[in-house]
C-alpha cells in the first residue's frame, strides 16, 4: 500500500498544509498543485522580465522549511511548481539538499507560428475560433502532460519531481504508475489513479471543506486535515487524513468533490486515459475513511489539451456600501446616478454589470426581494473594455458618490478601484505527435 498526500489545492492555498501532511503521520508521497489555468501567463510575464523567475516561489519556501523532515522520512515530492521555468525551480530546490528531476517540454509558445503555418489551428474548444484570430495577444501556451511523464521522472530516482504544466490528476497517477508499474493499456487502473487524483486535487475540499452536509457539526475546521490516498496495486483505494486532524471524510463529502468541475461523467478525458465516473463504488470504511472500488476506464485519445492565455482587454470593479434605512433603494439610486454620469461622459463599455451584495450578488433573481428593513447593501459595479482609458475613467466616478449621492454611504476607504488587464483562457487540442515530455535530472 502506498500513501499519497495532497498538500495544496491551488496556488494561494494554506502554506502550512504541506508541512502538516509531512509531519503529522506517515506518507510516501506529497503532491502539490500550484497552477491554475491563468497562472502560466503571470509566470511567463515574470520570466520575460527576469529569466531566473517564472515558477512558484511558495513551493521553494515550503521545501526549505520542510527539507529536514522530507529527507528523514524519505518522502518523495511531486509538484507542478515549475511553471514556465522548471529548471530554475529545480535549481532552487537543489540548494536544500534534495535531488530533483524536471518534466518540461510543455511550453509551446515559441512554436505557435510554426504549428499554425502547418495547419494546426488550435481552435478554441468553447467557441471554435482558430488561434490565429488572437495570435498577437497570446501570452503563454502549454501542453498538459499526464501521469506517465511524472512516472518517468520518478524512475530517475530523484526525490523531488518539479513539472511545468501537468494535469492535476497526473500528480497522483504518476506515483501510482511508478510504484505499481501500471502501463498504458491497463485502462481501469489508470482511471482509478486519475479518479484518486481528482478526489484530492482540491485539497481539503474532500475532507469537509466547503461541504454542505451538516456543515455546522464538522469538527475543528481550524485544524482541518488534508487528504491522503491509500492506494493498492489492484486500483482500489481509500481516501483518509491524518489521525487527530479536523474535518470529516464521509461518502457525502467525497461525492461532492467527485462532482466538482465535472462535465460528462462517463468521459473524464486526461492524457493518460478516459475515466468513467459512473463506475465508481463508494463505501464508508471506518471513521474518516471512504473506499473506492469498481472503477473503469477506456483508452486515451490521441490529443493533448493545451492551455493558452491571451490578453483580452481591461476591467475594473468598484463598490460602496449603504446602510439602513432604505439601504437597497439607496444602492439602486446610486447605481442609476453612476450610469447617468458615465453616459454623460460618453463612456462606452463592452460590458457593465451591477450587483447588490446582501441582495442578489450570489443568486440573482432567485434570491427574491430583500426584507424592507435590510441593514445594509453593497452596490458593486464592474466594467470591461478593450480600451484601457474608458475603464480608467470609470474608476474615478465611484468615490465622488460618497459626497454627491444618496446618504449614509461608506466603504470607499481603499480609494479608487484598480484597472486590471484581463488575461483570458483559450483551451485547445494538439495532436500528441506534436509534443513530448522532456525528463531531466537537475545538476548542481
Amino acid at each position: 500500500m502506498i500513501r499519497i498526500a495532497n498538500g495544496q489545492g491551488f496556488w494561494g492555498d494554506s502554506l502550512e498544509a504541506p508541512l502538516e501532511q509531512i509531519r503529522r503521520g506517515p506518507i510516501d508521497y506529497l503532491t502539490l498543485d500550484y497552477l491554475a489555468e491563468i497562472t502560466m501567463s503571470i509566470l511567463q510575464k515574470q520570466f520575460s522580465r527576469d529569466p531566473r523567475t517564472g515558477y512558484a516561489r511558495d513551493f521553494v519556501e515550503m521545501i526549505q522549511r520542510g527539507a529536514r523532515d522530507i529527507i528523514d522520512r524519505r518522502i518523495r515530492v511531486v509538484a507542478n511548481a515549475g511553471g514556465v521555468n522548471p529548471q530554475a525551480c529545480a535549481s532552487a530546490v537543489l540548494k536544500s539538499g534534495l535531488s530533483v528531476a524536471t518534466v518540461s517540454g510543455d511550453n509551446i509558445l515559441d512554436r505557435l507560428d510554426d504549428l499554425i503555418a502547418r495547419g494546426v489551428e488550435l481552435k478554441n474548444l468553447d467557441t471554435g475560433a482558430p488561434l490565429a484570430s488572437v495570435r498577437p495577444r497570446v501570452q503563454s501556451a502549454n501542453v498538459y502532460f499526464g501521469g506517465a511523464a511524472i512516472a518517468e521522472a520518478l524512475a530517475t530516482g530523484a526525490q523531488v519531481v518539479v513539472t511545468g504544466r501537468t494535469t492535476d490528476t497526473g500528480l497522483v497517477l504518476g506515483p501510482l504508475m511508478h510504484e505499481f508499474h501500471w502501463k498504458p493499456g491497463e485502462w481501469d487502473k489508470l482511471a482509478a489513479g486519475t479518479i484518486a487524483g481528482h478526489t484530492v486535487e482540491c485539497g481539503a475540499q474532500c475532507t469537509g471543506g466547503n461541504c454542505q452536509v451538516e456543515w455546522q457539526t464538522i469538527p475543528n475546521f481550524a485544524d482541518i486535515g488534508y487528504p491522503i490516498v491509500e492506494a493498492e496495486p489492484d486500483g482500489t483505494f481509500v481516501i483518509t487524513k491524518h489521525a487527530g486532524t479536523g474535518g470529516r471524510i464521509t461518502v457525502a463529502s467525497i461525492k461532492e468533490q467527485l462532482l466538482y468541475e465535472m462535465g460528462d461523467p462517463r468521459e473524464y478525458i486526461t492524457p493518460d486515459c478516459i475515466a468513467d465516473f459512473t463506475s465508481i463504488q463508494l463505501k464508508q470504511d471506518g471513521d474518516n475513511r471512504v473506499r473506492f472500488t469498481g472503477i473503469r476506464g477506456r483508452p486515451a485519445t490521441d490529443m493533448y489539451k493545451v492551455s493558452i492565455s491571451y490578453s483580452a482587454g481591461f476591467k475594473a470593479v468598484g463598490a460602496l456600501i449603504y446602510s439602513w434605512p432604505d439601504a437597497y433603494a439607496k444602492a439602486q439610486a446610486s447605481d442609476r446616478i453612476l450610469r447617468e454620469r458615465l453616459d454623460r461622459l460618453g463612456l462606452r463599455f463592452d460590458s457593465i454589470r451591477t450587483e447588490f451584495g446582501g441582495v442578489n450578488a450570489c443568486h440573482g433573481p432567485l434570491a427574491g426581494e430583500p426584507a424592507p428593513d435590510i441593514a445594509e447593501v453593497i452596490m458593486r459595479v464592474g466594467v470591461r473594455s478593450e480600451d484601457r482609458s474608458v475603464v480608467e475613467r470609470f474608476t474615478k466616478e465611484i468615490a465622488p458618490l460618497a459626497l454627491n449621492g444618496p446618504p449614509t454611504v461608506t466603504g470607499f476607504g481603499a480609494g479608487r478601484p484598480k484597472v486590471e488587464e484581463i488575461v483570458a483562457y483559450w483551451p485547445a487540442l494538439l495532436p500528441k505527435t506534436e509534443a513530448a515530455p522532456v525528463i531531466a535530472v537537475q545538476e548542481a
Partner: protein
Amino acid sequence: MARVKLVRIAHARSGDKGDTSNVGLIALRPAFYPVLVEQVTAARVQKHFEGICLGAVERFELPNLGALNFLLHESLDGGGTLSLKTDAQGKTYSAALLRMEIDVPDALLSENPVSS
C-alpha cells in the same frame, strides 16, 4: 405529497469550466434519487435559472452516486477572468439549485429522516 425545497432531500457542489457552470446534485438518501431523476429535469433547471443561464442546460445521471450533474452553458458572464460577476466561478449555484421546489411523497420523507 409534500412540496419541499430541494435542500431538504439533496446537497450539491458547483464549479466552472469557462462560461459553463456545473452543478452536481446529490440525493441525501438513496430513496430520494428517483425523485430527483423524475422531477429535476434539464428543462426545469433551465427555467429555474432563467435570467442567469443564457444557454442550454445538459443533464447527466450518476446512479452509482445517487447524483445528477448539470451543465449550465453561458451562465458566468463570459467566465474566468472575463466575467464581471462576484461569483465568476458559479461556486454558489449549488445552493441556488437547492432553492427549487419539488413534490415528494410524505411517506418517503417520514421513512428516510434527514437529520438537522
